[in-house]
């Protein structure tokens, strides 16, 4: 194979790393994710964007096998490297989680155990999953902390989580997720507590790894500009459904869905004087509208929109679920 081969050619020859097909999830019989379909080719990054409560973290947790509990029901297909995740048993999950799948959790502070030092948090997975000796693990841990831009890493290994700033805790979580070099990294708001200079550094670090190891990353991002910079593909979610998906330059550059357009109009810039968010709030899980879930807040909604759910239609490059795309 020639190195010059374009990335689209690679896509054609290898199967996607992640493939969701009509994937749905219920908690206590309430629909949280409804008929999601999207694919992520190997070596690419994808951003999940959308309203708070839309189900972004739920997708991440489901892909990590962390929702295999009572009260949660799943349907449809979710494949990782060709393997169906919906029917996977606990044993098989343990082989994937931490080794091939890594996750940076949204609430970094809550994800770190206050009783253990940072060094312990970092070294533990290295020893257990990669079988490193305690000295090797400490050395790797040190290198990882430095790679996420934490100064005085040696002293920080002995610190407890509460002794680090919020952004440092978040970077420790990133170090832990990167430790075992997963094939798929799920980064849930990885940089929301970081200043923009460190954010740029971290996103570049993740991008470099993706390029070097042919790994992929699913980011959950609220910063649409950052999503356009960091990811090839974008999936816009609203109330558990895909509204618009495809290539970043199309979905964010030439958005056609009223919800994506509303999101873009809420992006705040240095000279923003007024903000006009869409009226109302996202529906609650108990009271999902039956047609298009965005209809109650949509400026273009018609009778058909409230009666009939619009299907997700289009090509790999651009899919839209809307009766009246702009």
């Amino acid at each position, binding site marked *: 194979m020639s190195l010059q081969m374009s990335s689209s050619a690679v896509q054609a020859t290898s199967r996607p790393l992640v493939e969701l097909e009509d994937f749905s999830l219920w908690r206590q019989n309430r629909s949280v994710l409804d008929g999601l379909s999207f694919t992520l080719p190997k070596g690419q990054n994808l951003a999940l964007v959308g309203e*708070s409560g839309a189900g972004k973290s739920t997708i991440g947790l489901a892909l990590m096998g962390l929702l295999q509990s009572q009260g949660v029901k799943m349907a449809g297909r979710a494949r990782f490297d060709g393997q169906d995740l919906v029917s996977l048993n606990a044993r098989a999950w343990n082989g994937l989680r931490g080794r091939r799948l890594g996750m940076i959790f949204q609430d970094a502070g809550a994800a770190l155990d206050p009783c253990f030092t940072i060094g312990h948090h970092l070294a533990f997975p290295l020893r257990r999953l990669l079988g490193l000796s305690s000295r090797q693990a400490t050395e790797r841990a040190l290198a990882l902390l430095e790679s996420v831009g934490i100064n005085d890493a040696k002293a920080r290994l002995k610190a407890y989580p509460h*002794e680090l700033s*919020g952004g*440092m805790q978040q970077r420790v979580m990133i170090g832990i997720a990167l430790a075992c070099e997963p094939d798929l990294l799920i980064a849930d708001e990885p940089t929301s507590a970081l200043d*923009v200079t460190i*954010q740029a550094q971290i996103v570049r670090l993740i991008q470099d790894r993706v390029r070097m190891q042919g790994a992929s990353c699913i980011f959950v991002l609220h910063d649409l500009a950052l999503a356009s910079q960091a990811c090839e593909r974008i999936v816009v979610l609203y109330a558990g459904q895909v509204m618009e998906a495809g290539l970043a330059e199309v979905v964010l550059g030439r958005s056609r869905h009223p919800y994506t357009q509303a999101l873009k109009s809420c992006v705040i810039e240095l000279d923003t004087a007024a903000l006009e968010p869409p009226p109302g709030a996202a529906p*609650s899980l108990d009271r999902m509208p039956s047609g298009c879930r965005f209809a109650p807040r949509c400026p273009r909604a018609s009778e058909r929109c409230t009666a009939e759910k619009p299907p997700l239609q289009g090509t790999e490059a651009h899919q839209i679920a809307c009766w009246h795309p702009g």
Partner: protein
Amino acid sequence: MTALLFELLDVEKSYELRGGGAAFRPGPKRRLRALDGVRLTVARGDSVALVGESGSGKSTLLRVLMGLTSPTDGRALYGGQDVTQLKGERRAAFQREVAMVYQDARGSLNPRLPVLDLIAEPIRHHKLRAGPAVRDRVLELLDQVGLPAATLKRYPSQLSGGQVRRVAIARALASEPLTIVADEAVSGLDVSTQAQLLNLLVELQRRMGLTLIFITHDLGVASFLCDQIAVMYLGRIVETGPTRAILERPAHPYTQALLNAQPRFFAPIAQPLQGEIPSPIDLPPGCRFAGRCPRAVPACREDDPALMPSGQGRAVACIRPLTAAA
């Protein structure tokens, strides 16, 4: 003259670190200076944004300001009185007048209480409503932060990250405070929810003269919400003054670096600053930013620049500022 609400007078806050371990230099106890000579005054009705490097001491500054921790040196005053010494009625007034939103929203909420009780607690505590009016007020607050009424019965563990953050904001608003001190209150929220909350805060500013002290990483949020800005780097305020003026013509090279690193649609991710971030434990002589500063000259590594007024309400700590604010 407007009365000063908060005053930080040359505040220093340092933490003793655990020494020991063969890898560490023996000798005197190591101290980490989280804040070093910080001066800040906030008058009633002011809105101040705190921005800066992760770990630069922003959260520590708020903790000192709120009297949650005493400064190692210097003084923190509220209405002219030492904030850690407020007693009786003055203490009660302070608790009533000032509400805080913590950086770790999930960690700041009691996981055993449903949302109704979490938000009702300050209402009952300050006797702002009684009987069924309490519940009505909670519903009103939920609506203001864009959460449906069904949220009342949920526990924090059943809510998404952004929903928890909005509950924390509703709780802060519940005591009808005159001042809101917020640590990353809107980070990690989707842009439309963020826009809704920012509009709410601006309205409270206009209607009730709410005072705001707001940590944010988003310079757009800082400029939308706050008239004043203070940029922090490694325990110091390095630039301060009117937000618009500073973001239009930054004087400190670190402020400029922050502006350069702001995400921009479809642009390549900003080149991170080169050079070492010094450890707050072993601070080098001279300017703390010198190691990463593109404008540094040898003198920068010798003299520690103090925060000096530069006219028009601005001040900068740099011997080679970018713009001499004429």
